[in-house]
């Protein structure tokens, strides 16, 4: 319960940081609108600022935003003049599907290869796997996306295009899995490295030697005895992974032209659409902090040695 309170407090602090940061921006939306027009009538400008609530002191603007946020009213988008919630809500499932698939990809590739790399430490296979994972971490996510597009052009002559209503389950899966693989590959590289180092720690423990001396088969030792304990630190990292994944999603959605939440953040930033930007960033913060909270709880449940004082 104490940790839950701390989480709420953290989110509250984040909201202040986001709000202050966005108020640093030179020039507000009214300036930008008038920049395009060329001629500025001060009365018109003042009217628009009053409409948007920009004439009020900053603390008042903040309180208005937060109280709206708590009651589900996210304000109006400057750009589309529609309620922000209507713009954001339909994009969430798209990004959620993409993130879910990417995480599956990352775990299915990263964990088994991490185990192999650790078991075969310092062999040629280990070196190859480490170099591949390091390459994955070194490539910018958007470049990987572009390369995949290029591969599609070379082999199929077309680019996988996002559609709102894909026909059938398999088409939908295919449509999402290509960009998900682009994001997931980088995350799998991170997971591979973590699983490897965590496995190496565990494999040196006494109980592994005991298992080996009683004649347990290698597969059982590696995947049953060792992996179970090696995965504990890996689980905690999934929280960090969520943040890492989001960074990848921002550019991958841009490259593949997928209308998800992550790409929308970049668009809103370009339009200087404050209500959108602050709501989107707040949304991201809530997701990341909640995942971290859940992972913390999960960790305590998985490892009986850890107990959070309540």
């Amino acid at each position, binding site marked *: 319960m104490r940790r839950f309170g701390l989480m709420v407090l953290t989110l509250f602090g984040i909201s202040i940081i986001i709000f202050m940061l966005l108020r640093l921006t030179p020039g507000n939306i009214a300036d930008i609108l008038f920049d395009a027009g060329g001629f500025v009538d001060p009365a018109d400008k003042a009217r628009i600022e009053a409409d948007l609530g920009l004439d009020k002191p900053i603390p008042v603007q903040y309180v208005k935003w937060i109280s709206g946020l708590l009651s589900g009213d996210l304000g109006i988008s400057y750009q589309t003049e529609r309620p922000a919630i209507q713009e954001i809500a339909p994009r969430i499932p798209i990004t959620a599907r993409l993130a879910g698939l990417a995480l599956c990809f990352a775990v299915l590739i990263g964990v088994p290869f991490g185990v192999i790399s650790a078991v075969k430490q310092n062999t040629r296979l280990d070196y190859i796997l480490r170099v591949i994972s390091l390459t994955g971490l070194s490539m910018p996510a958007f470049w990987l996306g572009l390369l995949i597009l290029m591969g599609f052009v070379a082999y199929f002559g077309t680019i996988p295009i996002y559609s709102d209503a894909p026909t059938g389950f398999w088409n939908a899966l295919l449509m999402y899995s290509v960009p998900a693989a682009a994001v997931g590959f980088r995350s799998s590289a991170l997971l591979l490295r973590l699983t490897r180092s965590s496995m190496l720690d565990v494999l040196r423990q006494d109980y592994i030697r005991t298992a080996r001396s009683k004649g347990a088969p290698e597969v059982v030792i590696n995947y049953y005895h060792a992996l179970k304990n090696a995965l504990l630190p890996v689980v905690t990292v999934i929280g960090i992974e969520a943040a890492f994944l989001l960074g990848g999603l921002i550019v991958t959605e841009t490259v593949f032209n997928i209308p998800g939440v992550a790409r929308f*953040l970049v668009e809103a930033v370009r339009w200087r659409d404050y209500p959108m930007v602050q709501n989107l960033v707040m949304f991201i913060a809530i997701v990341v902090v909640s995942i971290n909270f859940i992972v913390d709880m999960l960790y305590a449940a998985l490892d009986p040695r850890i107990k959070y004082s309540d």
Partner: protein
Amino acid sequence: MSTLDFNAELAAAGANVKSRWGAVRFFIRRYPLGAAGAVIIGIFLFAAAFAPFLTVYDPLSTNAAASLARPSATHWLGCDFMGRDVWARIMYGARISLEVSLGAMLLGSGIGVTVGLLSGYLLGWFDLITQRILEMMQALPLLVLAIIMAAALGPSLHNTIIAIAIPLVPYVARVIRSSTLSLREQPFVEAAKAIGMPETRIAIRHVLPNTLSPLIVLATAQLGSAILVEATLSFLGLGVPEPHPSWGRMLSESAAEYVRTAPWLVIFPGLAISFVVFGTNLLGDALRDLLDPRQRS
């Protein structure tokens, strides 16, 4: 007291440190991948320093006749839409990449070290408040924080450096804080106190030098992530503005149009980014193995 001493670390790992070359040879033999990383970073620094001597073209001058020219003997890596030579832009782009990443790393580490040292040394309310603020900053993905910083500050070379540096601060500050916490209990710090040395002097002369080895490992890793974040910001159009040749902006969204028609515009700048970041990752891993004895096998 033990300050950071590469020779001592190398000697502990079994190197002949009598001669400087002995230590270098040992590093190469023991950490071949790390040495490869150092070579890659060397090439990167060389390209940044000698860009004008490595190409006959001006990275900014346009040439309509060479628009989207294929890679050839005259234009090694081809030309972009405006007829600008890609090889020249990559060489000069190394300067931008180096300037931004090194600037961001130094600024971020500078602030991070100061905050971490103060936090670990003063403790009390200062520590409590800064730790909470750092936690909040870390709750946002690095890239998201950099994006809003970049948006808030507006596009310029210096603002890009700041936008990348600030999100790096919490990572440095936390590492420095935790090593400061353990160092302040060490006998040599108590000894310094006992002979009446002022606290600030102890912090700077005795505690700070001992936090260097985790800092070096972290800084190498951050150089790589700063390069990646700069490339990403520029790719999204929020980073280094025209006319600076930035690797990330060479790949900006319009690059997707060229996937079909001019793949060299997509392949080479991305290779440059990946190559350099790969180098920093290799070197960072080797340095961590060397400087963190617990990882030594």
